[in-house]
């Protein structure tokens, strides 16, 4: 049995932009995911972080083959998911599950918690008699910390945090190996987020789950993930252990991102040097040439950055960066023009 559970190789997901009154014409593509390689090891938590629209959700769905990849492969436990369809794919779904951002909209409003939970069991012939099913449901509720009387109630009768627990319980019904959690806490109240994050950690320890956690909040990702991939405009620009990413960020975008996240500590805030990026995120329908980040990069160099796309290369074991000048920037051989950093407070 290989160490890697999910192997993503050169994955691309492009959405056609259609226009036209009589006949739909494709006038271009949204390059939502544009060449992603990553490997998720058994039992680890891989965190995916990036700004709105960079393709995180699309990548997560493509890993579960809920959206059709344009190119590339997703190998799940030795099986190429692209080769599967119909019944074999449906059977495979038992082993990989998803937790959604908006717990209310991802639960059918007309189904009671009981029928939402039973559905997964039934789909994979895991319901063995009324007794056994009832026991299993009680166990699931207990595991995610919901009261036993929850079964007869409907999703809208619960608070946000409880709804997310229902969503998690639903994913657990089929005893999956992998759970892709797309922004599992960003719709929740601050004081409740921690409950759900702790629950996810407990479940991983209890059931040996593998997680792909997607979030826009780097603090959340760093907290829960073992390894973190930073996405920018459809590609991974840096990947490292959660600690290394924080202590030794090598990609200019990661640095800017880290420096932009407010920390609830005035001492840190007063001391901190910010790398303020200029401009906005370019559209994924017209990504910049060369390095996708060069339009906003404070360290960009005139020669290669706008012409040659930097590959994701390993600069140290377990640390990959997609920047031509990562080493030079780290060593201080290239400096950002002054005026781009500012301190706040």
């Amino acid at each position, binding site marked *: 049995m290989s160490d890697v559970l999910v192997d993503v190789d050169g994955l691309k997901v492009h959405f056609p932009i259609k226009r036209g009154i009589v006949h739909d014409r494709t006038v271009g593509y949204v390059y939502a995911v544009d060449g992603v390689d990553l490997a998720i090891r058994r039992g680890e938590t891989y965190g995916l972080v990036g700004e709105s629209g960079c393709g995180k959700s699309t990548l997560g769905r493509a890993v579960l083959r809920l959206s059709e990849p344009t190119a590339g492969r997703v190998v799940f436990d030795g099986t190429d998911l692209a080769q599967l369809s119909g019944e074999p794919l449906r059977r495979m779904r038992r082993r990989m599950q998803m937790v959604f951002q908006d717990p209310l909209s991802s639960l059918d409003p007309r189904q009671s918690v009981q029928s939402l939970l039973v559905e997964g069991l039934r789909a994979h012939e895991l319901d063995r008699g009324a007794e056994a099913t009832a026991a299993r449901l009680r166990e699931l509720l207990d595991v995610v910390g919901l009261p036993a009387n929850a079964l007869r109630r409907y999703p809208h009768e619960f608070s946000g945090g409880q709804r997310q627990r229902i969503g998690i319980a639903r994913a657990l019904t*089929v005893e999956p190996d992998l759970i892709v959690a797309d922004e599992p806490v960003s719709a929740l109240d601050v004081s409740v987020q921690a409950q759900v994050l702790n629950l996810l950690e407990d479940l991983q320890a209890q059931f040996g789950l593998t997680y792909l956690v997607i979030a826009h909040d780097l603090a959340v990702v760093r907290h829960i993930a073992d390894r973190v991939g930073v996405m920018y405009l459809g590609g991974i620009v840096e990947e490292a252990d959660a600690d290394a990413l924080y202590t030794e960020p090598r990609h200019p975008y990661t640095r800017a991102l880290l420096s932009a996240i407010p920390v609830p500590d005035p001492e840190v805030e007063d001391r901190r040097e910010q790398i303020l990026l200029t401009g906005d995120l370019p559209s994924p329908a017209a990504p910049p040439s060369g390095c996708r980040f060069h339009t906003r990069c404070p360290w960009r160099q005139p020669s290669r950055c706008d012409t040659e796309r930097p590959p994701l290369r390993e600069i140290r074991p377990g640390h990959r960066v997609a920047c031509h000048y990562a080493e030079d920037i780290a060593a201080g051989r290239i400096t950002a023009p002054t005026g781009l950093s500012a301190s706040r407070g």
Partner: protein
Amino acid sequence: MLTSSRRQRIDDLAAGGGAPDAGVSLAVSAWRRLRRSPLFLVGAAIIGVFVVMALLAPWLAQHDPALRLLDDQVSRARNEIPPAQPGHPLGGDQQGRDLYSRMLLGSQQTLLVAVLATVIGLGGGLVLGTLAGAIGGWVDSVVMRLVDVMLSIPSLLLAVSVGALFARQTQFTVILAVAIVQIPIFARLLRGSMLAQRASDHVLAARALGVRRRAIVFRHMLPNSLGPVVVQSTLVLAIAIIDAAALSFLGLGAADDSVPEWGQMLGRAQDVIDSHPQLAFWPAGAIITVALGFTLVGESLRDALDPKNRR
């Protein structure tokens, strides 16, 4: 222009009700708002009276609607029709039959036409709309082309053409003609809300769980798409009554008039409308009132189910 605006309206309706909303609370909050709406209460009262009338008609009507009780008062030459008189509060019709009894029993037929036409239209629309919305791809394209063609023909014209296809007109051909016109409307409506459901998070969640496609369609997509269809059905009940009357009026109604029906009665009253307007007045008034009742209920249902009106 006409067709595109019609299509637009159907699609808007589909989008409005298709929003994923809390099931129970949606129904409960809709009901709360309905109860306070005077329009709904008026409409419901009209429908209530109408249905009760139809159910009790055999006991309420004192005379056989086919019997020419007042035949002696009818004279074609002098254009005489029996007036109101003791025992016959509305008088008689051209053939001396008791108008009051015919009106009462006519409600049965009218209700039957409305309900059957709506059920057939709804059934056809459900099948086509579900096929298009659930399967998508070329099935969707074919079905929707067909639907768009049907929608592009003005509805009465379509009904008349369908009605004229039959050699001998009966009550059933009227129902069929009226129903066929409604099929594309229901189909497009349902397809619209099914598509919205297909893109929704909870359907994606069910797919991710590995739920079979059939179960996704029938457990998740269809029940959540029915809101706008329910509204439309109520409105179609009104439309069907009016369309059936129009067909009868145009001479495409049932040939046999021993079983009374309001639309048919109105159609037959044409010849004598100048001298004896009461023959047209009663059925026309009844048709308008009942159609208004269904429309009021339908419109207030639509308002009540509109997620934008929810808090």
